[in-house]
């Protein structure tokens, strides 16, 4: 950890609490008075920990560890009263917060332990004070400030480290889910390719037609495997977009051509005459729309009706894909756009995440309404192109 940014952070906090050089001087002047009280305060500190199981459970090394920790605590308080608040001082405070995450000691116990220590130090100050009341009050204020600053920097470190650990854990979990999903999605096409190759190499009575069938099957399943990889890479990196006026009619036509729906599904495209162009990146939006169309196809199994329609108003173009499929349960509705969430038997669970990500990068939005058992409507909302009013 680079110490300079930490020291900068500490200076910022010092200025926030109104820390001054005289504060440091008052603390140094009082250090000698407080020192004889430290053993008593530290015994109290650990006696309280003993009474609280959640705090005690982090001490796994028994009396030997407690004795060592008591030594560390004395050193910490002496540094606190030492007047040298430099980068090494701040780094040691930072390390306390970091260490607390490592051993699983909740920050709340640092807060209450410091509160107790604060009470003890202020009491000790009053008990041993020989000078005027005003200086006593100023010294007590300085002591409170330095304790608050220590608490702030320890808590800062705690949160930073806690967050970093959480992110590491989440990354590992995502890696596991993606890995499992990819394995599952690639296994089927690979099995098909493997068995087709087996037939081509080993069949005793192959016919020319069968051979062609198997080669085509291999070709198709290579494309399936390729798509799995493509959707992963397009999820990992939606490239920067070039928003240009897009003819919605052409977008719908080309997307339908590359995503055939099968004979049992009746397709209606309903675009009003004079529909303005939308603003967006054509190729990316074709991917987004393609995912919606394929989802609709999967939701309808072999039979159903797909309606693609659009409306324009107030400088906005809305393109809707409506199917008569199985619909989406209410409990799934809020989650379907999350990465790796899928209600299908097969699928990575990235399609809608990619679609939404693309639409949002085009300054638009993607929303869904659905009725289980009746069907779903996905609507892409984009800005209309101000200059281009055109036929679909």
């Amino acid at each position, binding site marked *: 950890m680079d110490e300079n940014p930490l020291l900068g952070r500490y200076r910022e906090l010092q200025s926030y609490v109104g820390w001054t050089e005289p504060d440091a001087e008052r603390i140094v002047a009082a250090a000698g008075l407080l020192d004889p009280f430290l053993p008593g305060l530290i015994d109290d500190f650990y006696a309280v920990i003993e009474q609280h199981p959640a705090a005690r459970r982090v001490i796994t090394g028994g009396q030997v560890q407690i004795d060592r920790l008591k030594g560390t605590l004395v050193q910490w308080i002496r540094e606190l009263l030492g007047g040298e608040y430099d980068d090494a001082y701040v780094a040691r405070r930072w390390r306390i917060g970091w260490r607390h995450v490592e051993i699983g000691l909740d920050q709340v116990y640092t807060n209450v332990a410091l509160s107790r220590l604060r009470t003890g130090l202020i009491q000790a100050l009053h008990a041993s004070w020989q000078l005027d009341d005003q200086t006593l009050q100023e010294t007590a204020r300085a002591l409170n400030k330095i304790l608050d600053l220590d608490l702030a920097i320890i808590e800062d470190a705690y949160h930073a480290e806690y967050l970093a650990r959480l992110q590491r854990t989440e990354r590992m979990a995502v890696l596991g889910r993606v890995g499992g999903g990819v394995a599952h999605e690639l296994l089927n096409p690979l099995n098909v390719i493997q068995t087709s190759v087996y037939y081509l190499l080993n069949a005793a009575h192959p016919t020319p037609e069968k051979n062609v069938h198997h080669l085509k099957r291999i070709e198709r399943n290579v494309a399936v495997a390729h798509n799995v990889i493509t959707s992963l890479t397009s999820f990992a990196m939606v490239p920067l977009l070039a928003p240009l006026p897009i003819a919605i009619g052409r977008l719908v036509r080309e997307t339908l051509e590359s995503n055939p729906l099968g004979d049992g599904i009746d397709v209606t495209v309903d675009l009003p005459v004079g529909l303005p162009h939308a603003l967006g990146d054509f190729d990316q939006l074709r991917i987004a729309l393609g995912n919606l169309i394929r989802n609709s196809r999967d939701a309808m199994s072999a039979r159903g009706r797909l309606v693609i329609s659009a409306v324009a108003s107030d400088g906005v173009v809305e393109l809707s894909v409506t199917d008569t499929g199985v619909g989406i349960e209410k409990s799934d509705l809020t989650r379907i756009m999350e990465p790796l969430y899928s209600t299908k*038997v097969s699928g990575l669970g990235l399609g809608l995440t990619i679609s939404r990500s693309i639409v949002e990068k085009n300054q638009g939005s993607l929303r869904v309404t659905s009725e289980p058992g009746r069907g779903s409507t996905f609507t892409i909302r984009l800005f209309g192109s101000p200059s281009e009013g055109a036929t679909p």
Partner: protein
Amino acid sequence: VTVPEKPSILVADDDPDICANVSDILCDLDYQVDTALNGPSALELVSRQPCDVALLDPRIPGMGGLLPQREIKKSGGTVTLLATAFAGAHTAEQALTAGMWKTLAKAVDFPSLLHVVEQAIDQSLIRMARG
């Protein structure tokens, strides 16, 4: 005098390409092959015409765990094999408890799969002979 019929095999998998490929390979080896894409049609096929061996993927739609395997077994001298990409120890044990003859990893290499199919056919023939 009866002419011995070709040994019959039922292949059930939700991927039509897998069904077609396994069917082509087994037909080429002179087996009689039926395919089913889901549990109910697998059951229907077996109830019409008992098969010697069934190759099942327990994850196909409508399988309801290992229920079809039990139904298929009730129908007569059928030996069933479980082929699954996820034949973990637990699934395999459940399957064997349910009377399944063997479990296979789905990505099994074909020569050993064919060897197991041959063994299964023999089992089926022995059972039929015992009546």
